[in-house]
């Protein structure tokens, strides 16, 4: 295993071990960077050690001791001396990682996604610490400047230290609520990658891949939590459509126009197995219901064969238990497919009159689409025009502009 692959595969694990050993997030991170730098320098010449991970951990431990010895500020020194004392007493086992992997990565997830941290900070910290993404990469993925992202990470780590956010798996009575926060963070990472809210591409592959990787870790580490499994299923099923969702010129392709043959069947199979097992084990929560909806889509051989009745029933359940404007919007789109665009339009009217999703371009975009399908060209055109200023994603905008041009020409034809 070369240095780079080890870094990608095991960064989170090794960092988790070091945080426990050192009791200090920042120090663990710095020491780990030092150790990987040393590996890059030494391995090519001296050959790879027998146990690369153990080498990294023990090197990082020495680097941490060096760093602690060189701390000069008095207040740091006292804490450093205490850490040094425990560090020098604690023995290093031959492979300090294997035996405790499970608990440590979970601990790190729960620390990074602690609800006392802002959601932005949770996402950044999770990508940095568990996935090993660099500050540059995270800044690029979320389209903020590198200094802004660096500051966000520094503040999050400061809060972990100053407010004493614990490094442990929450006790049973807090676990459901805290797991919900973890899953939400992972899903936000996925969504930002899957339906990028801004930027030049519709999908940012690196984010969806990291979210799925985290989803796998969570569902492996907590096999009895059906919601973790359901979230993984949901992400796999969505992501299986990635090739068909984007046209050759980078524009999004609506679900009913996608070529189902371009869906990733193996990944769909994995997702279906997971969602079925989650539902069988009693999970009918937020992610399980959404995964079930995507599963019905995935099981259709072509768009015309989609079981829209079943999808509508699942949306009814979802709206009943986890009502939100976005759920209502999607439900209206499903009803439009099952019962016709006019019925969908009624639901959108109701949603709009409640004032939900005022600045969300997908509401006017969905409305314009239904008007287009009803042949109400002029209204459709006016509604596309209303949606356009709200879009920040470039390919999405091009897609809507193309639809607008279509309905404008139909409208001219209709007037003769």
């Amino acid at each position, binding site marked *: 295993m070369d240095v780079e692959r080890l870094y990608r595969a095991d960064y989170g694990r090794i960092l988790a071990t070091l945080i426990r050993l050192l009791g200090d997030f920042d120090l663990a991170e710095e020491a780990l960077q030092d150790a990987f730098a040393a590996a890059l320098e030494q391995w090519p010449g001296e050959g790879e050690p027998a146990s690369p991970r153990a080498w990294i951990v023990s090197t990082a431990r020495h680097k941490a001791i060096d760093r602690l010895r060189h701390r000069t500020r008095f207040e740091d020194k006292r804490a450093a001396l205490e850490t040094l004392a425990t560090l020098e007493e604690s023995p290093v086992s031959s492979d300090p990682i294997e035996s405790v992997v499970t608990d440590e990565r979970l601990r790190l997830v729960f620390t990074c996604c*602690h609800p*006392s941290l802002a959601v932005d900070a949770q996402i950044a910290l999770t990508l940095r610490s568990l996935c090993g993404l660099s500050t540059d990469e995270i800044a690029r993925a979320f389209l903020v400047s590198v200094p802004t992202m660096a500051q966000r990470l520094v503040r999050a780590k400061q809060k972990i230290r*100053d*407010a*004493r*956010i*614990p490094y442990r798996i*929450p006790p049973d009575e*807090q676990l459901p609520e805290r797991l919900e926060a973890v899953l939400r963070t992972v899903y936000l990472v996925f969504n930002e990658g899957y339906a990028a809210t801004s930027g030049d591409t519709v999908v940012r592959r690196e984010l969806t891949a990291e979210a799925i990787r985290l989803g796998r870790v969570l569902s492996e580490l907590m096999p009895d939590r059906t919601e973790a499994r359901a979230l993984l299923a949901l992400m796999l099923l969505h992501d299986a459509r990635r090739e068909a969702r984007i046209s050759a010129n980078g524009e999004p392709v609506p679900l009913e126009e996608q070529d189902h043959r371009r869906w990733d069947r193996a990944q769909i199979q994995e997702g279906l197995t997971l969602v079925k097992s989650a539902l069988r084990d009693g999970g009918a929560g937020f992610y399980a219901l959404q995964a079930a909806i995507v599963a019905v889509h995935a099981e259709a051989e072509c768009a015309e064969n989609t079981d829209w009745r079943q999808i509508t029933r699942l949306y009814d359940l979802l709206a009943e238990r986890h009502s939100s404007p976005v759920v209502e919007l999607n439900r209206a789109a499903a009803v439009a497919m099952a019962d016709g665009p006019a019925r969908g339009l009624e639901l959108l009217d109701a949603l709009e009159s409640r004032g939900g999703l005022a600045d969300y371009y997908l509401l006017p975009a969905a409305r314009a689409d239904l008007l287009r399908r009803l042949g109400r060209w002029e209204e459709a055109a006016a509604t596309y025009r209303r949606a356009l200023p709200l879009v920040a994603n470039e390919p999405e905008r091009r897609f809507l502009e193309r639809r607008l041009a279509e309905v404008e020409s139909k409208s001219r034809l209709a007037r003769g």
Partner: protein
Amino acid sequence: MQYLLLIYQREAELNGWTDADKAAFYEAYGPFTQGIVKSGHMRAGAGLQPIATATTVRVRDGKTLTTDGPFAETKEQLAGFYLIEAKDIDEAIAIAAKIPSARFGSVEVRPTIAGH
């Protein structure tokens, strides 16, 4: 580590309650406070008189400026506090969640700067 739990609630809302509801609400503070005394978490605490009794003091250029208020522009007002000893923020949050006012107001959990 010590945390200050700042209790915020809407005075206006509380004023609209019946006497029986108010009595039941204040009574719930008894067992809560006894609980954290017994468990060793309690360091200090008090309920506060209404915001109308408040005075704000500032010193500018050596001059003391005393005014009425703070102005009650905010929806929720500071109504009381506890100072507790807890091992980490999770323990502090768990205690904050048991404060009777948390059910309709809010509790801000602030770590204190370590003293000497």
